[in-house]
């Protein structure tokens, strides 16, 4: 495999604390050095990155690829191409496919399709319970042997607290991380944040308590079982408070937030715009600000896309009858770098939340430019502005509330294992 020199870019690698203009040297698909070339470096192909940011390929902990089961919304091939266009080199897909990822065969199918698509590294999360029904434990060790790096319930609940506790204890025995979305099913039957906007529009509300009650249960059981729990897609200030208290008392828990929650609020639904229908719902400005602060200080270590591509018909309905979810792979990077532009945190911190943060949360060998690491490298122009036009996306899902918005930050090249995966 050829050697590469990425020349003259601003190298931002939060994992190793690097943020400076430097060259990145790549050989045999791995990072060889940053700065001076290693001794006896072979003939290389130069890549000019002057004026560009050079960072690890992004790691996305929550992206629905819709395959198997809903290929009219997206396929592993289409959605991994979209991920690559968005600078994402590694992603995890939740187990709520059809069929559910609760057998080695389904894991194998996804891995084969991902390998055939070539490019983005796809890590399936296995089902924590069989069929995600919340009743019996899924064969976690067999799923791990097939390639699952962690377990999850997707967005489905485990109502029986005994089952949840046992599932966490068993996963802890196998040292498997567990991703759980804090969402009380009985309080989550609405479609918009319970508050002034939902009241005005007459939309059934989802209370803050839908998150806090379930989060409190998850945190208590995480502390009790010692499981490595990752809390997925926080949406409320009260949830951030609960997380902070659990962390302070020594509970081993990491957490993510969807990028759209850091930018949009309940007001986005004001015109019954079904692209703003998402679960958990877009909430109040105070919630958004608390989530931003938690991202800045690292209490929330990961920003995910929560990518949910839909076919047009799924959104072509009155708000509450439309399918929730946002197609988000191709806006993740600009929404993350916008945090630096809006002075929420510096660029290295923002990028840490989509590189080293998620990699550490689920124990993935990704998200760093340290010598020896796989050469997954994203080169982007942080200043380049573009207008979101979902008709030109790689993703099959064109459902985004950001359509028509001007965003800054355009991916110019994505290397995965040293290979150009951009096109």
């Amino acid at each position: 495999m050829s050697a590469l020199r990425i020349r003259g870019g601003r190298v931002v690698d939060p994992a190793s604390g690097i943020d400076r203009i430097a060259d990145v040297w790549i050989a045999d698909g791995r990072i060889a050095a940053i700065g001076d070339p290693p001794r006896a470096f072979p003939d290389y192909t130069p890549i000019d990155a002057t004026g560009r940011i050079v960072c690890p390929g992004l790691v996305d902990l929550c992206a629905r690829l819709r395959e198997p089961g809903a290929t009219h919304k997206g396929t592993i091939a289409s959605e991994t191409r979209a991920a690559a266009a968005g600078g994402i080199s590694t992603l995890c897909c939740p187990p709520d496919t059809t069929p559910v990822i609760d057998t080695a065969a389904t894991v194998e199918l996804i891995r084969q399709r991902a390998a055939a698509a070539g490019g983005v590294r796809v890590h399936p999360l296995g089902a924590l319970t069989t069929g995600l029904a919340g009743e019996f434990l899924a064969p976690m060790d067999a799923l791990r042997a097939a390639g699952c790096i962690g377990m999850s319930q997707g967005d489905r609940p485990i109502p029986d607290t005994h089952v949840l506790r046992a599932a966490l204890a068993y996963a802890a025995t196998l040292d498997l991380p567990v991703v759980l979305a804090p969402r009380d099913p009985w309080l989550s039957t609405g479609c918009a944040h319970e508050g002034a906007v939902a009241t005005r529009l007459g939309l059934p509300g989802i209370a803050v308590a839908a998150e806090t009650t379930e989060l409190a249960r998850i945190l208590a059981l995480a502390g009790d079982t010692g499981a490595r729990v990752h809390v997925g897609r926080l949406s409320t200030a009260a949830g951030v408070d609960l997380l902070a208290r659990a962390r302070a008392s020594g509970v081993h828990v990491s957490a993510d937030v969807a990028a759209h929650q850091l930018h949009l609020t309940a007001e986005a639904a004001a015109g019954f715009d079904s692209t703003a229908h998402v679960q958990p719902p877009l909430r109040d400005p105070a919630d958004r600000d608390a989530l931003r602060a938690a991202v800045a200080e690292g209490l929330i270590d990961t920003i995910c896309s929560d990518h949910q591509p839909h076919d047009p018909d799924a959104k072509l309905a009155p708000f509450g009858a439309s399918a929730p979810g946002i197609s988000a792979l191709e806006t993740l990077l600009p929404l993350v770098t916008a945090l630096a532009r809006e002075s929420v945190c510096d660029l290295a911190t923002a990028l840490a939340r989509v590189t080293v943060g998620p990699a550490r949360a689920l124990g993935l060998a990704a998200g760093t430019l340290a010598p020896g690491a796989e050469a997954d490298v994203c080169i982007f122009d942080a200043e380049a502005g573009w207008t979101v036009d979902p008709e030109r996306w790689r993703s099959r899902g064109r459902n985004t509330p950001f359509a028509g918005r001007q965003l800054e930050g355009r991916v110019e090249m994505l290397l995965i294992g040293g290979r150009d995966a951009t096109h």
Partner: protein
Amino acid sequence: MAEPGRDVQVGADGRLQHFLTTEGLGQDRIVEILDLAESFAGVHDKSIKKVPLLRGHTVVNLFFETSTRTRTTFELAAKRLSADVLNLNVSTSATAKGESLLDTLANLQAMQCDLFVMRHAESGAAHFVARHVAPGTHVINAGDGQHAHPTQALLDVLTIRRHKGDFENLSIAIVGDLLHSRVARSEIHALRALGTREIRVVGPRTLLPSEIEALGVSVFHDIEEGIAGADAVIMLRLQRERMEHALLPSETEYFSKWGLTPERLARAKPDAIVMHPGPINRGVEIDSRVADGPHSVILDQVTSGIAIRMAVMALVAGTAPREPRA
């Protein structure tokens, strides 16, 4: 977008294209509709109860939720305007076969129907349809989910205006299940636009939507405090499902705590009027002695309903006389 309805229901020329919500409608436009309705009110008393304003138009009553009263008054209103009327109870036809809302609509548009009166269980359904109909086709919202029921709200304010006149000195209480009430939301917007001095909402916490104060109302949980000194009391219908969803213990307990009895009504102004969008549940939200008593204007509301619906149809179709014959 603070006023979601305005951009959709008002055309580039400033004319009302659709009638979807009272939010953002503005005092002048509401008064225009009320005045026009008053001019139509005389039509009912003639021996031939018709004016030719919608001759040649086809009005479709497109009801995805069942309704007797609202659909009937829309039908009468359309016929008195000389329109052809088609009643479709869609909940039992096309959608049961999996046809989408837009497909149903496209089929009806292909039959040259030009005015849709629509009721649907989803909030925002009328806005959704209004965004997708062909230009020149008009949508009137006859109730969408828990969002809006603007013609009901305007017939209620017309009834209040007839009995009370100027809104600026009025205190109006709305009592009951505001959480699920599209009527109440539309009334609140309309009453505020007309400058109503005070709007109160009264009910248990389980039936009042979160942050309803943001709509410009004051909140009461005790009915006697809530209707004290009120000029008009609007009672809302209580659906039996509220007990099934654990929002209330029983109809009996609801009546004993929030039902409007003559004794409680004595707290309101001596000349207070009592209203109800119907159909009423006697002994649940309202005592028969009040519903049939001297303060009740419930049947006046039904009569006002036809005139309001004639006015709204003529306005959106662009055939209303320029100067109402008030």
